[in-house]
């Protein structure tokens, strides 16, 4: 019973007129200006967030490829040009190591052994030497 009375009491308490505390009571544009000030102060943070949102993994890769593809093409063209220049350039003086092996048969030891001269050659070499 007491609870019911209390509830009725709570419901019956009429609202207060607090209109005089409303900052827009004397200024219709108050909330529009309020919103504008908040949005102006938030502009940098919104811009930062937009930037982060746009920077996805695919975006980063695309960004890299955009920068990298022309550089790679340029490097390839430059390398091709240098190779071509090298090929057409006349041979210069030989280095000492190159001069020593120039015009010699490029025969390796296994080839030499395969020719059937291995045994004779080896014995000849041994008998002549010792």
């Amino acid at each position: 019973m007491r609870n019911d009375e209390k509830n009725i009491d709570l419901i019956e308490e009429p609202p207060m007129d607090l209109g005089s505390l409303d900052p827009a009571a004397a200024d219709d544009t108050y909330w529009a200006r309020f919103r504008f000030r908040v949005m102006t102060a938030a502009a940098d943070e919104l811009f930062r967030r937009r930037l982060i949102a746009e920077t996805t993994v695919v975006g980063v890769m695309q960004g890299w490829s955009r920068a990298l593809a022309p550089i790679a093409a340029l490097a390839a063209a430059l390398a091709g040009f240098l190779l071509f220049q090298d090929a057409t350039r006349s041979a210069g003086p030989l280095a000492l190591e190159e001069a020593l092996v120039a015009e010699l048969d490029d025969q390796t030891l296994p080839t030499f052994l395969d020719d059937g001269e291995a045994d004779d050659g080896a014995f000849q070499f041994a008998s002549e030497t010792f």
Partner: protein
Amino acid sequence: MDDGALVRRARAGDGAAFGQLVERYMRAAYSVAYSVTGRHEDAEDAAQEAFVVALERLDDCRSPDRFAGWLMTIVRNRSRNLVRRESLRDTDPVPVSARSAGPTPDKVTEQAELGAKLAAALERLPQVQREIVLLHDLEGWKHREIAERLEIPSGTVRSHLHFARKALRASLHGEGPEARERA
């Protein structure tokens, strides 16, 4: 669009979505700030700051659907910090009644006087009651909305609202503690 969707879009830097959140909660934020600071200028500063802080910390809002309650906590904290800073600065606050000083039309003066009386009466209420009565009777929030957004039981909201109104009426009609002291 619900708060959750707006918060998610604002996280990605969508200005229009954030603008909608500001539009939706600026009055409530002001009321909550006013309930703490008791001064128009401070309430305005605290509420505006709170929106920017909320945007900066939007990733910390774990339940975007409960954005309002989370925002109001920020508003309350910013307002308390502001009051603390003001008291440390040790300056004489401009009385509410002084805002309407000067040659103003009768109605405006009357409104300002009533506002000053209400502000003084509100100051005597506990903070939670001030907040609830402002959100309900000034901003038009319903019991259920206040309960959900401030995360307190609906019965408690009704009870606070009831006692806040009663105390305000008593103060305005000269039945408050000050009036009793004078008598």
